């Protein structure tokens, strides 16, 4: 092709460059439209992209070489974008052609959407719960379960919540009707936490114990965007000789890294639970901002995630009545627990906890 098809650049400012490349693009599009036959397309390709005499090569050598240093960067960038456009356009023309003209009579319109069999969607809570459980299973924990309707003894008393103790106030309890005549310890209620399964497991099994307990729990809480009277917990318990607070720290640090990613950090704060001593709240570094501070972590860089502690000797004392192996002078252990809803809400950005229990297909389909 002759040199005169390459327009001269009047100026190197942004306006002039935009105009010049715009004109080149228009020219290319017109020629591309007219190149109906396979031969025509090949000549279009050679004309624009040919290595020695192609127009792009010429543009490159004429425009770029004469450009002042200050404009080279901007010009080069626009040139590369234009070149990519031409390459992509020609490649598309060729692929349409291979499926297009000369297309067999029974050819399929491959651009129509694919057919899919419907696959059921895992519930985000169950999925999250199973994922947490899997992390602990890989660390040697077996799954434990227990009843959702519990006695006062297993839900409170054996876990060192004495009758009339203020700590019971923090767990508003749903109770089964007609319990008033019974002794307090035998009264039936909806378990307020999965912790009773700790006791039930230890009563059945001498140490060592490593269990992870997923389950549904209930509290008499008013429902709002972040509270539900029905929710799920995953609880863990590890008892053996020489289990220490530093083992608790290491275990949860490892588990959080396994669940959220190896860059996650943990930190521990003193807290209070009647059935652990020492007790701790655990925060993880914000999984959204990496600890720099963002809206999700209220600009603190940390997210509170679970409660834990060393099993209180009084809890072992309650178990010892049935399993003498739990002598608090010889063994020790730790327990931890976390809310599944809270983790799932954080992980998936769910803003209303009620959606988990609505069965709304539009909500569930987001987790497909």
């Amino acid at each position, binding site marked *: 092709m002759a040199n005169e098809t390459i327009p001269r650049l009047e100026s190197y400012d942004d306006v002039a460059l935009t105009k010049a490349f715009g004109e080149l693009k228009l020219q290319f599009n017109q020629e591309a439209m007219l190149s109906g036959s396979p031969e025509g397309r090949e000549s279009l390709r050679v004309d624009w992209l040919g290595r020695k005499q192609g127009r792009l090569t010429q543009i490159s050598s004429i425009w770029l070489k004469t450009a002042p240093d200050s404009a080279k960067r901007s010009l080069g960038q626009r040139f590369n974008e234009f070149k990519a456009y031409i390459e992509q356009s020609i490649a598309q023309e060729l692929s349409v052609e291979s499926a297009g003209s000369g297309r067999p009579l029974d050819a399929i319109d491959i651009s129509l959407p694919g057919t899919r*069999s*419907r*696959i*059921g*969607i*895992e*519930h985000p*809570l*169950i999925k999250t719960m199973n994922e947490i459980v899997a992390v602990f299973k890989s660390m*040697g924990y*077996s*799954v*434990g*379960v227990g*009843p*959702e*309707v519990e006695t006062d003894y297993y839900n409170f008393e054996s876990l060192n919540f004495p009758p*009339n103790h203020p*700590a019971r106030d*923090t767990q508003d309890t*749903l*109770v*089964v*009707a*007609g*319990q008033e005549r019974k002794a307090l310890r035998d009264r*039936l209620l909806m378990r307020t936490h999965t912790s009773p399964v700790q006791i039930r497991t230890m009563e059945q099994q001498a140490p*060592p114990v*490593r269990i992870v307990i997923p389950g*549904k729990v*209930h509290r*008499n809480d008013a429902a709002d965007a972040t509270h539900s009277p*029905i929710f799920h917990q995953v609880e863990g318990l*590890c008892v*053996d000789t*020489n*289990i*220490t*607070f*530093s*083992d608790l720290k*290491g*275990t949860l640090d*490892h588990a959080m890294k396994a669940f959220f990613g190896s860059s996650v950090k943990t*930190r521990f*704060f*003193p*807290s*209070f639970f009647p059935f652990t*001593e*020492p007790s701790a709240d655990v925060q993880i570094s914000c999984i959204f901002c990496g600890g720099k501070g963002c809206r999700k972590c209220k600009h603190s860089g940390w997210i509170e995630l679970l409660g834990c502690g060393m099993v209180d*000797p009084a809890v072992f004392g309650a178990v010892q009545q049935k399993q003498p192996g739990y002598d608090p002078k010889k063994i*020790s252990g730790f327990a931890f627990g976390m809310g599944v809803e809270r983790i799932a809400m954080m992980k998936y950005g769910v803003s209303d906890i009620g959606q988990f*229990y*609505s*069965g*709304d*297909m*539009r909500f*569930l389909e987001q987790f497909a």
Partner: protein
Amino acid sequence: MKILSQWIREYVPSIAADDRQLADDLTLRGIAVDGVFDLGADADGKSNGSLFEMDITTNRVDAMNHYGIAREAATIYNVPLLPLDAALPEFAKSSKPCPVRIEAPELCGRFTARVLRGVHVGASSGVVAERFRLLEQKQIFNTVDATNFVWMAMGHPTHAFDLDKLEGGIVVRRARKGEKIKLLDGTERTLEPDDLVVADEVKAVGLAGIMGGWDTMITPATRNVLVEAAWFDPATIRRSSRRHGLHTDASHRFERGADFNAAPVANALVCKLILESGGSVEGELVDVVIPEAAARTADRTAISLAVSEVARHLGATEDGKGIPAATVVQYLTALGCDLKASGEQAYAVKLPSWRLDIEREIDLIEEVARVHGYNKFANTLPAFAGTVVDLPQEQKEATLRRTLLALGLSEAVSSTFCSAAEADVFAPQPGSSVAMGNPLNEEAGMLRPSLLPGMLTMMAHNLHRDVQDVRLFEMGTVFSGSTERVDENPALSLGATGAAEGTSLYPEKDALFFEMKGAIEELCGKFSRRSLYFDTFAADSGLLPAWLQPGRCARAVMDGATVAWFGQVSSAQAQQRKLKQAVYVGEVYLHRLYKQALRQPISRELSRFPAVERDFSFIFPNAISWQQVAAALDNLALAEMVSREPREIFPGAAGKPVPEGHSSLLLRAVFQSQERTLREEEMQAMSARVMEALRDLGGQLRA
């Protein structure tokens, strides 16, 4: 709770850290500061310090005040905590001290009283006014402000009476049955003997540890006051507070255990503040102490602490040094414990009167961990020699869940409760549902005996939002029994509505029934079993569940046990829930299914010889079901017939080749031998037997 940093620093002047650092250091030791707000400077340009918004766990009532937090700060930084200055001005000894009598020594462990005369009741000024302003605490007048100020300073509740309205000395006694008292909040309460009152010789003048009485309250006209600071039994105060629905700062502290030794100090601090506006002390402090109560609190027996136990529970520190004995002594001493060596690396620890939450060695170990800082302990992993054991049902549940998801049903979670009316309709055994004592709401009065109320609620939820294609399942617990004993069983519910296509065997309107039947067959197929069949009952048999539509439902029976009921929702239920399109639901009784083991697949050798298909077209009366046809063919016991399937069924009509009341059935049988290629004569013989069996059943060969 709000705390002023300047007030903390008054008690611990040598803290070097700034307010933010102080807040962080306290938080890391469990004295959580949720927010730090700069209070700017006063008129002279002197900084007002910061306001800390605290969130302190319920076990640490001792730290819910400025002096308590100051003690924590002194411990963290290992700097001195100044004693509270409770010195009163010189006063003359009185010849007749105010009489105080404790008539209920098991409920009131200590009572201090002091009389001030000629006081001036007016507005507070000075430090009290300034700090109240910063804390946005409402000022009342100096006598009341003094008790509130001391409460915030050191956390002991006190009360001031108008002395001239008291008739005789103080009596602390149980209330008389039906005794009435008008309290400071203006309400009149009727008391019981379980309530403890502070009284004079004539009447109750305060509900002990909760609220003072109206009749003896301080007014601007008051000239002489009696200041009370006492110690009451926690359980008594808690019961009283609950009974009267009165939760006050004082009850909060007393029911969690106040500091037995704080009463005289708090009394003096209040007096000192009141005297700043005038007046004088009359006589010595009257201080009645019940020794048994002191023994349970301030004078508890020392507990022993072995340093080796600290290491056994806490493990490794990040610096690898562990926590040496000297450090243990330093931490606990700063917290107010008195440690005496009692052998090699062991101590007898006398506990501070304000820390009733500390009772045992493990409590001391927690304190050591807390003061040291949790994050200074190493992260270690315990060795483990056990194995992971699967629960008996874990695999079964996982298999069902995986199968249901593959079948295109999505998992849902619904409420654990239902209404009494729903329990009546859906309970598999009538009358065995369990009621809740304090239900969340009217619709949640019963523990669910079935997952179906929840499933129908979710189906309706979708349909009412114009979501027309729904396939859901839920796996959860159902409850039966009585309020004496509740049984829990695992169950599975299925729900389906919306588009489903008809086939050559059934029309579109029946498609969801077969989709659900297929799902149940698939689920049952995962378990080993001897038999599985489906049947149904007539509407008037009394054997159909009320929630199913007669003629459009079935039950699945596996090895003689009913494992599922499913079908179209009854028109009554559909109407009640305003379901605008046909909804199919089912419930699988997993406790019965789980009795079977998961099926172990066994491979058998595939035949090397060709299979031969034969189609048979017959007209049958509608009374003949496919099950009867299949049974007739199976009864032939043809070893080579490897399958027989219905291929097409269409109903007849008047005037058509297939008459009304009849259907045409196209049946395909496949024959194959394991040993040889089947010969034409053999095929003809077997076909003839098939046709004979079909004719015997009432079938008519189509031309």
